[in-house]
Each structure stands twice: as structure tokens, then as C-alpha cells.
């Protein structure tokens, strides 16, 4: 699970402990190349295309996709970032604070928006993002690109472009970064915990 989701889900003082490396740095890069070309194929070019990364885990993915799509399409693709904190449905149930201001550099009216995120889980973040987009303009279409689809949807939402389908148990966590994807879980790190969190140390 990406940084944003982890911050929201983790118990105070918890840390991610990786167990299985699901994708390495090369796998992530190849998935980005493939998704970039799928986006171009699906939209028949990059005209009207706007990549919008969800804060925080989706922002680097949107930028990385733009770096591939731009040269192939022959023109730079606009990249934006969207923070959906104020649209979440769990405000009041747990601490919800935005991490950064939303930045969309172009008018979204008529745009082909590709929402980018690291992990698709319950679908509630994407629901919030769709509502936020509707307040920012009227895109011609909205598509969804994610690096990992881990299942457990709670809303009728499906991705258009997927890096990897990863069956998980509900209590597990998925950590996505440009360096790779790791499956693991959150562990309590109270004052009694021994040593530093074993992030990116355990693999197979």
C-alpha cells in the first residue's frame, strides 16, 4: 500500500514490514512502459490527454507515465495532482488531512483524464477522486491506471490499466515505489519495539 493509504490506515506508531517482493525495479519500469502504450492505444494518441496523480502515491506514477507518453506522442502531456482528503467518506472516522494542494495545470472540460494511483483497494479513494474531478470541470472521459489492483472492492469501480493484479488478504499491505512492489503487513511499533522497522529488508 502506498504512502498515502498507509498513513490513513496505519495504527499510530505502526510501520510497514515487507514480506514478499512482488515486483522489482525492472518489473515496475516495464509495467509503466506497457501502461503508457496502452493509454496511447486506448485513446488513439495523446490528444486531450491529462494525467492526474492521486496524492501522494499516484503522483510519481502520473509523472513517470508522462515521461514515456510525451516522447512517443511527440508532445508533452499535462500532469496534475489531486488531493481527495476533503472528499473522503471517512472524515470523522479517522484523522483525515490533505498532504498537498491540488494542482491541475489545464482546463479539464473535454479532457481525457487518466487518474493514476499506486494501489487500487476498496475503491473509495477513486470514488472521492471522481467527485473532486466533477468540481474541477467536465472531462470527456475518466480512466483509471493503477500499479497494483489488490481486490476487495467495496464500490463498483474497476481499473482501465493495471500494472499487476495481486490477490491479497484484507489485513495485508502493499507498498509501491519506483524501486518495486512489496507485500507485507503493518506491525505495531510501540516504545517496546526492538530495533528499526525492517522496511525493504525481508524478501524472497
Amino acid at each position, binding site marked *: 500500500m502506498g504512502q498515502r493509504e498507509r498513513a490513513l490506515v496505519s495504527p499510530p506508531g505502526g510501520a510497514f514490514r515487507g514480506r514478499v517482493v512482488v515486483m522489482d525495479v525492472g518489473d515496475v519500469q516495464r509495467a509503466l512502459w506497457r501502461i503508457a502504450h496502452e493509454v496511447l492505444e486506448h485513446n488513439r494518441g495523446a490528444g486531450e490527454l491529462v494525467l492526474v496523480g492521486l496524492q501522494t502515491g499516484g503522483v510519481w506514477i502520473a509523472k513517470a507515465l508522462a515521461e514515456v507518453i510525451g516522447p512517443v506522442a511527440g508532445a508533452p502531456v499535462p500532469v496534475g495532482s489531486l488531493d481527495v482528503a476533503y472528499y473522503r467518506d471517512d472524515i*470523522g*472516522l479517522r*484523522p483525515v488531512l*490533505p498532504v498537498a494542494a491540488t494542482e491541475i495545470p489545464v482546463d479539464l472540460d473535454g479532457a481525457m483524464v487518466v487518474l493514476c494511483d499506486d494501489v487500487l483497494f476498496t475503491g473509495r479513494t477513486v470514488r472521492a477522486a471522481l467527485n473532486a474531478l466533477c*468540481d474541477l470541470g467536465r472531462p470527456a472521459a475518466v480512466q483509471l491506471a493503477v500499479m497494483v489492483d489488490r481486490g476487495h472492492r467495496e464500490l463498483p469501480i474497476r481499473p482501465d490499466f493495471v500494472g499487476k493484479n495481486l490477490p491479497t488478504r484484507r489485513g495485508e499491505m502493499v507498498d509501491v515505489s519506483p524501486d518495486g512492489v512489496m507485500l507485507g503487513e503493518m506491525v505495531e511499533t510501540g516504545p517496546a519495539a526492538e530495533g528499526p522497522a525492517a522496511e525493504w529488508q525481508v524478501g524472497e
Partner: protein
Amino acid sequence: MSGRHLLGITDLGVDGIDEVMRLADTFVEVGRRPIPRVPALRGKTVVSTFFEDSTRTRLSFEAAAKRLSADVMTFTGSSSSLNKGESLRDTVLTIAAMGADAFVVRHGCAGVPAQVAGWLDQAGGASVLNAGDGAHEHPTQALLDCFTISREREARFGARPARPGVLRGLRVAIVGDIRHSRVARSNVLAFSALGAEISLVAPATLLPPSLAGWPVEVSHDIDALLPKCDVVYLLRLQNERMTEQFLPTLREYTATYGLTAERARLLGPSTIVMHPGPIRRGIEIAAEVADSPVSVITTQVANGVAVRMAVLYLLLGSGAPIGA
């Protein structure tokens, strides 16, 4: 804001002020959208209870609450059952019984918001936001002033704010009726918490009876200070609170302390002029200075909505423990 209320600047601490400013940045962006509204406080009810006249603070709080999708109820002291003899406590508990999540309270007496907070703590536990109490505090004005200084210095001079302590090293002169000003009290607390050096400029009669413990310098010579200041913060003479003769004449005040067009030429190239409003042209500030580019008075008002959205969201929505 470790507690549920915002009664004064000290409730926040440096980290709390910083968090309000960080969120206000996100709400400025919301305000620029085609639909400047987010659903963050859906289902919450905010009551504005103003026992004293107000234009910008009441409208600003109400706009902020509406842009967060909260429901807004408005209470005005002068047209209420207070005139029939109902006590303040009964009035507050009556409104609370209708289901309110936050009270925005302005009152002519210092301490009323704290008193209301005490009653509400025992009756359902709504939040209280002080919108100005007597000559005590006006914390959201101070927050929007800090936010405006930080943003304007970044926009005009490329000064990247280093947080926390965004006003570190800045020289601020607060000029005018300090004695009756809750804005001055909140601003002295907020500006000094963020690292600014503060000078109070006023005739001796318009300074508080004691400044013991205030982190300020006092001056009676505005002409000497103007070239050295980064921010000149003007205050209105509060005639409605003046119970005795504090000044010989208004003309003498303007001649000695007013920011006239001639005086404005003494301002440094990177100085901004602020005023909490309402301004009285020709008395504390000349009309042409108020309308000139050095003045950020309307920017303060615009930023007020975003800052009050940040405060309302932190108190009612975020669920996050922050502040002192």
C-alpha cells in the same frame, strides 16, 4: 488545537498556526475552482452568534462554512429573545439543543467565548470559535494576517516561507488604537510566535495600561519606523469603545500617526500595508494609500475565507490532534 475550541492564539501554538496556514493553502486552491466547494463538513451545523456588529468576519465565517458544505444558522443578538430578557446562557443552550456542531461567537465582552465553551462542554460538546471578544482576542484575524504576510511576501518578493516560524526576522509595526484592539493582542501573540519583531506605535493614551510581558517595543515616532518595517499594520480608532477623551482631535491623530500619502513615500520597497478593516479613509489611512499596490487590505479579506475554512475543518472534520 489540542482542544475542541479556538478561543485564542495560544490554543494553537506555533505548530497549530503552521498547520492552519498549510491547510489554508489547500483551501485557496479550492476557492479558485469552477465550483469552489468541497463536501468535507457535510451534515455539520455551524451557528454564527454575533452579539456585536460585523460585516467581514460574519460573512467570511459563513462563506467558509458553506464552502465546506456545512449547514449555517445565523443568530443576531439585536433581533433575538435577548431583548425579551433571555440570558446568554439560556440562548446558547437553546441553540445547542437544536443541534449545532460549532458556535462562532462574537461579543463585546472579553471572555464570553470561553464562558460559552464551558457551558457547551457540559451540554453536548460543540466547538466554539472566538470571532472577537471585547478587547481580548480575535484569533482568526491574526491567522489570516500571518497567512497573508507569508503569501504576499512569496508572491511579491519570492521569499519562500520557511515553516514553522514563517515571519522570522520580519519587522512589523502595529499602529493605532492598541488599547481597545483585540486584533492587536492576537497579532502580537501570533507574529511573535512566528518570529517577527514587533513595534507598537501609538499615542500613550491608546496603549494598554501595562505592557509587562509583551514581546514588543514601543515607539511614538512613526516616521522613523516606516523605512525599516516589512509590514505596517494599521488599526482603526475604536470610538465605540472609547469611554473618555483619548485624543485631542482626530485631525491631530491623522497628522501624527495616520498613513498619509506623504508618509507612504517613506515606506521601503518591500513593505506591505495591512488593516483588519473596517478602514476609515482619511483618518488612519489616506484613501490613495489604501487603494495603492502597497496595500493588501482586500487580499486579507480574500484569504480570510480560506483560513476560516482551515480552522473549521481542523476543529470539526480532521479528527487530527494538533497544536499546543
